[in-house]
Every structure is written in C-alpha cells, then in structure tokens.
C-alpha cells in the first residue's frame, strides 16, 4: 500500500506539472499580432541559445527598442548589437536584464537609454509584465520582479504565470494555439518595427514640474549598472534618443544631472535631441512620440558610426559565419521594410 501511495503521489505531481505547464504556455499572451512589445525581452534567448554574441547591448525603454536598429547599425558600421528593451522599462529592470544578458555573453559596450532615469516607480503591473514575463526563470528574474512589484502583485505569479493569465481561458485566440510551441521573432534583434507617420505636436509645451531631480532609486540602479560594467571591463555609454515631444519631454535640468553624473564617472553621454547630423524631422515620428523606422534608421546609422569611431576603431573583421548571419538579419529587416513601403504606395 505504501508503495502504491508513493507511486500515486509522484504520478500526480508529474501529471499536475504537465497540465499546469501546458495551460501556462497556452494561456500566456503570445504578443505576435497584438502588444508585440511583450515579446521583446523573451526573444533575446533565441540569439543566446544559438550562442551569438554582440559587441553592443542597448538597454532601456521604448527609446531603446524604437530608435536603434541592429541591422542598420551592422549595415552602416559593421557592429553587432542587440536591444534589450521593453515599454516603460525602469532602470532596475534594465539592470537585471544586463545581468541576465551577462549570463550568456559579454558585450564590449553597453548603451543605456537615459529617459527611464526620470522614473522612481514602476508604471503599472501590466508594464512590469511586459518587461519581466519574457525573462527566463533565474535569480536575476526573481530579483527583477522583487525590485519591480507593486503592493498588490505577488512574486509567485511571475514564477507560475498561469496564476496571472488563467483568466485568458475564455478569450483564447487562434494565435494562442498556433504559437503554442514555436514562434517567429517579431523583432529585429530587439528592434520593433514602427511604421506610422505623425509629427509631434509642436504647439504642445512641456508641463512644468515641481521637482526636477532624478529619483534616488533610479540613480541607485544607474550606479549598479555602472559598477557592473566597470567590474567586467565593459564600456558604459549613456544616450538620450533624438525624440522630444510634449508628454515625453527631456528637461534641461535632467539633462544637466545626467551630464554631471557622466562627467563624474567619466562616462560618455550623448544627447541626440536636435542633432543636425541625424536630421530628425516630423516625418520620422510614428505617432508624434516615438520614431518610425525612418527616424530609427537615421539614428542608427549616425550612432553606429559614433560608437564605431569611439569604441571599435580597429576592431578585427568578423568571421564568415557572423557575416552570413547578419546578412540574413539585414535582408529580413529590408523585407519587412519593403513590405511596408509597398503597402504605403
């Protein structure tokens, strides 16, 4: 009887595990046709599992994954890169994504988009999910969750996402079945294609703030990113993307603080707003706030060259395999670009 009971318990645990794992996979949002941003963080592991390493790692929020196109940077400067960003990602999330990336590779340069430095709290549970659900279960993920969670969130629901997404059973769609076990990447090495065209509202002036200091929590994690890079001999570069619009205004006071921080720790800080070399105009915006692919291409070509000159002046040429892989990536990018361009015509 005892053996029977032990067998039954083991069998039940295995069966329960299989059922819950299956439903977890089925019920988690796939982020293929809707809210594609949610797929960004997880797609990195496709590269990581194939053992591909990158010279540059971009970290940040929409200003990172919407402004820097690794395929164009490769085309313009011959540098390999990956963008690990997600919507409204906070600095602590970028820090843990950096640690997570370092488990798989060691880039030469880490570029941190600084816009997130103006936030000391998470945007919302939904945005936390977009940033954290895609991370593989690890110590870094758990720490990232702990750093991001609001009061009404529970850690275990990040470890067992079924606890969060179980209610989707009544709204399952075709894509939940289609992409149950396998899926194609929606991004181009972390860049999410944006095709709209709407110039920012130049009439709209920035809101006056009560306090222009950067939150301590953001600076604390910026310090952690800096120290982490220093310890590993990685160059840390701070960048403000060229976007500037009403609700997403980069105030001069913030800029001065970041510049001061960069000077203190001898970091490079590039504020690309209004850069004549890039030449961003109204037609380069997707929705009045974020850049479309035209703006992102301009930014990537320019910034890729900047990074090449500064950090990789005499880098050894890439091997044939790398060149082949990146040619494929570039082709894939242009296929999507052309699809859109044809659609527009």
């Amino acid at each position, binding site marked *: 009887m005892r053996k029977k009971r032990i067998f*039954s318990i083991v069998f*039940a645990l295995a*069966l329960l595990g299989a*059922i819950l794992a299956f439903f977890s996979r089925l019920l988690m949002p796939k982020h293929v046709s809707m809210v594609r941003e949610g797929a960004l963080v997880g797609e990195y592991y496709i590269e990581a599992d194939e053992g591909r390493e990158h010279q540059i790692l971009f970290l940040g929020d929409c200003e990172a994954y919407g402004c820097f196109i690794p395929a164009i940077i490769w085309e313009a400067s011959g540098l390999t890169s990956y963008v690990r960003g997600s919507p409204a990602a906070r600095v602590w999330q970028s820090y843990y994504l950096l640690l997570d990336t370092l488990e798989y590779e060691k880039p030469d340069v880490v570029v941190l988009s600084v816009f997130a430095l103006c936030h000391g709290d998470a945007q919302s549970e939904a945005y936390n999910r977009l940033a954290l659900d895609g991370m593989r279960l690890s110590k870094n993920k758990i720490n990232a969750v702990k750093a991001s969670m609001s009061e*009404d*969130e529970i850690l275990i629901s990040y470890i067992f996402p*079924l606890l969060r997404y*179980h209610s989707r*059973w*009544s709204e399952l769609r075709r894509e939940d079945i289609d992409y149950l076990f396998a899926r194609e990447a929606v991004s181009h090495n972390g860049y999410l294609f944006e095709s709209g065209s709407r110039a920012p509202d130049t009439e709209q002036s920035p809101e006056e703030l009560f306090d222009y200091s950067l939150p301590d929590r953001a600076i604390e994690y910026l310090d952690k990113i800096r120290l982490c890079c220093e310890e590993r001999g990685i160059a840390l570069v701070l960048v403000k993307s060229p976007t500037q619009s009403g609700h997403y205004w980069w105030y001069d006071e913030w800029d001065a603080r970041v510049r001061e921080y960069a000077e203190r720790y001898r970091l490079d800080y590039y504020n690309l707003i209004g850069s004549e070399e890039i030449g961003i105009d109204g037609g380069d915006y997707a929705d009045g706030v974020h850049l479309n692919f035209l703006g992102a291409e301009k930014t990537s070509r320019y910034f890729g060259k900047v990074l090449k000159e500064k950090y990789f002046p005499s880098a050894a040429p890439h091997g044939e395999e790398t060149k082949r892989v990146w040619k494929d990536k570039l082709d894939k990018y242009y296929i999507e670009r052309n699809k859109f361009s044809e659609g527009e015509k």
Partner: protein
Amino acid sequence: MSTLEFVGFTAAVLLLYYLVPRRAQSAVLLAANVFYCLSAGLLCLLSVIGVTTAAFCSSVKIERAAAKEHATPQERAVTKEHATPQERAVTKERATPQERKKSRRTLVFGLVFTLSSLVLVKLFSLLESASVLFRESEGGTLGLAFYSLSASGYLIDLYRGKIRREKSFLKLFIFVGFFPCIRLGPISRYSQLSPQLNKPHAPVWENIVSGAIRMLWGYFKKLVVADTALVAVRAIVAEPQKYGGGYIFFLIILYSVAIYADFTGGIDIALGASRMLDISLAENFDRPFSSESVREYWKRWHITLGAYFTDYVFYPLSISRPMRAISKRLRKSKYKKIGKKMPVYIALVFTWFLTGAWHGLSPNFILWGLSNAAVIIAAQELSPLSARFHQKHPTVNNNAVWRLFCVVRTFLIIGAIRIFDLWGNALTTPRAIASIFFDARGWKDLFGGGFLSLGLSLPEWIALAVGVALIFAVSKLDFKKDGKMRNIVTRRPLLTMLVIVALVSATAIFGSYGVGFDESSFIYSQF
C-alpha cells in the same frame, strides 16, 4: 492570507503537527492560531485574546455558581470523589433562589463581557455600507462573529453544568481561536471540539487525503463558482434602476448560488484543514437547497448558528417565566387559541431579530431576519389548510412533481429574502422584487442576451453552469458523510491523486483570482 498563503500555511502546520512529539501538538496549534491571527493584524490577535480572557475570567465564577445550581444530591455523590476541596465546598448544598438569581447574573455578566466586542463592532459597522458586496475587508475583526459565539456557548454550557471549566487559559485560547474555523466557523461547541484539540493525533492517510480533497473542493466552489457568479451579481446590484424584472429573478438564483458556493466553500476549507489535523468539526450544511419548507431549510443551512440560537436563545426564551405568564394570561382570555403559540412566536421573532442583528445592525439585515420569522409563522398558521389539502389528496406528498414544486418554492422564497443582503437601503429590495412582476422590459432584455452585459462572457457563463452542476452532483453523492463515495476515493491512492490533480487544475485555470479579485474575502466573513 491569500489562498496560496493559507494552503502553504496549512501545509506547514500539518508538517510540524505530525513531526513534533505528540504532547507538543497543542503547542503547534497554539502557535498556528497566533500566527494566523497575526496575519490578519495585531487587532485580530488582541481580539481573540480579549474574548478568551473574558470567557476565562467569567468561567471561574460561573462554574462555582453552576455547581451550586445544578448539582443534585446524586450528582454530588458521584462527583464528590473526583472533586477538588473547593468544588466539594460549593456543592455542599443546593442553591437557594437568591443564589440562583446571583448565578444567572454572573452568567449574564460573563456573556456581556464576552460578546461586548462583537456588539461594538456591529455598531461601528453601521458606519459602513450595509451591502455585503461593497463592504471594506473585515480586517482586524476577522471572524469575531464566530469565535465570540463559540466562547459564549462555552459559558452557557458551563453554567448549565454540561461541561467542566477549562483551567488552562492557553487551552481555552486554542479552542476559541482554532485557526481553521476562526474566519467563517463552524461555530464550535466546547464539549465537541476541545477534547479533540487536547489529545494526541497520529497521521492517518485517509484523514489527510480526504481533508485535502475537501479543502480543494472548497476552493473550487469559492473561486470557480462563487466568485464568478458574484461578478454578475455585483453588476446587477450596482445599477438597480437599470436591471429590473427578469434580472432580479436571475439575481435571486445567482446570489443563492454564489452565497451557497462561497459559504459552503469556506466551510469545506475549514473542515478539510481540520480533518487533515485529525480533528472533526461540526458539519454546517446538509444540502439546504433540497429543503421543502423554509423551516427545514434553516435546519440545514448554517446548522451551527441555527443550533446556537435555538439552544441558547429560542428554547430558553420560549420556556422562560415571562413567556409562561403571557401564555397563561392569554389562555384565560378570549385569545385562548393563540395563548399556546404566543410564547413560541415571540421567541421566534426575537431569535430571528437577533440572527438578523448578528449579520448586521442595519435595517436591511433586521428586515431579513424578521422576514424569515414572518414566513415561518405564516407557514405554521397555514398548516391546518395544508393538512386539509393533504387529507384530501393523500398521494400528493409522495409525488415527485409536488416535492420539486416545494423545493423550488422554498428556494425562491429564501432567495428573495436573502437579497436584503445586497442593498444597504432596505427599501430597494422590495422594490426590486416588485419589478419582477411589473418590469417586462427587464425580462425581454435578459432573454435578448442581456446576461452577457453582466461582466461574464458566454464561455464564463458555461463554466459557471458546469461548476454549479458539479456542486449539485457531488452534493447528491453525499461525499461529506462517511459514505461510500469517500471510501471509494480515499482508499484508492491513484484515484485520490487524480481527484486532487483535477481539482487543482480546474481551480487554477477557471478560478476567479489574481489581479482585480480578492479571493481571500468571503461573504460570510463580513458578518
């Protein structure tokens, strides 16, 4: 404590309980009670300690008074051998009328002392919404309405000489604050629960697995059925102007289902957790929706509360001296017929008034209680008519259609009265019920697919219906009583485990919990 936390907590208690030496098991229960109360807030712990202290201090005097009042010479002879010198002293002679009066006063004082915090909390709750759907979380007063009744029942039983005084404060605390039943009951009797709490227990496979299944079944009822149904209930209740007619009829059914699944689910969790500890609590339900009359229904619903009010309020009141005096006077007057019934009816109305007040002191709960009393009295007064009908048609009582009619009639009457819970304004309920007969638009709208606008999609309605059907089927199998079904399941380890897997999976997938839900809140824990 959230669902997962309570499951984890119970598992940890279980492990410790069976790992420690048997004589230390009480200490584990004590620590578990303290931890559980603290998880609800320091106020909760202080409240349980306060009620226990009140009961403990009162019990010393009450025991002494009870010994005098109840000991007969024979009893004294029997107990003398085992009695302490103090007890021997107090049982020397039978109580005089003055002593009896004094001992009753001691009991009343003890009860006031024990129940005062409950009364205060009820008074303060008048400041909150009187609707069970829109109240704040119970917070620090978690379960006060349940454990203070257990403590007061202990004092009354002690006064009546049915039990002996608990001399250890900690043991009394373990009884009053026994963690599985602190939130929702069942309201325990000291004579039934305390001996179990103080004896050693060995782990028994059947107890552990049947307790686990019962707990999981409770969670299924609560999360899959009750909380899903409550989404639609809330939508209707929030806009009584918009949802009338058929929606109210639907609300009566839906809220009956929701409160049944919510309360029985909570009780299943409590009974399951206790069973795993090899402790049996009193059953609180006996398929109430199979009742053919309102009176029968109340014998099958919240049995422990009903028994409390019957034993400690209704019976003592109906045979009290003032009641006997009223009866006597009426029987001598021209109202001879009613003279016999009057004490019972007065006691009934008072008991239901108190039951309503136990749920809340606001008018809607008082009206709820008095409506129940009115229906029971009306049924009693109409019973001669009913008897004549059955005399004429003697076969009708065994007719399945007639019995079904009685069951449905009882269900609807109880359901209609119960929706007094839902609106703080007591007048909204009669208005809403009247709309069932006069608001044709609501009926048309409901059958035109309006139920899909109540916050649940069609698949969710289907899942709810399946859940209700499952509850009905399981209640028919009578799993609770040590019947065949439980033996079949628990004696076959593989089948047991498959049932557990099915319950965990179904609750995890179809349950209403997580963001936007407070799955740890039960409707009855707000009373």
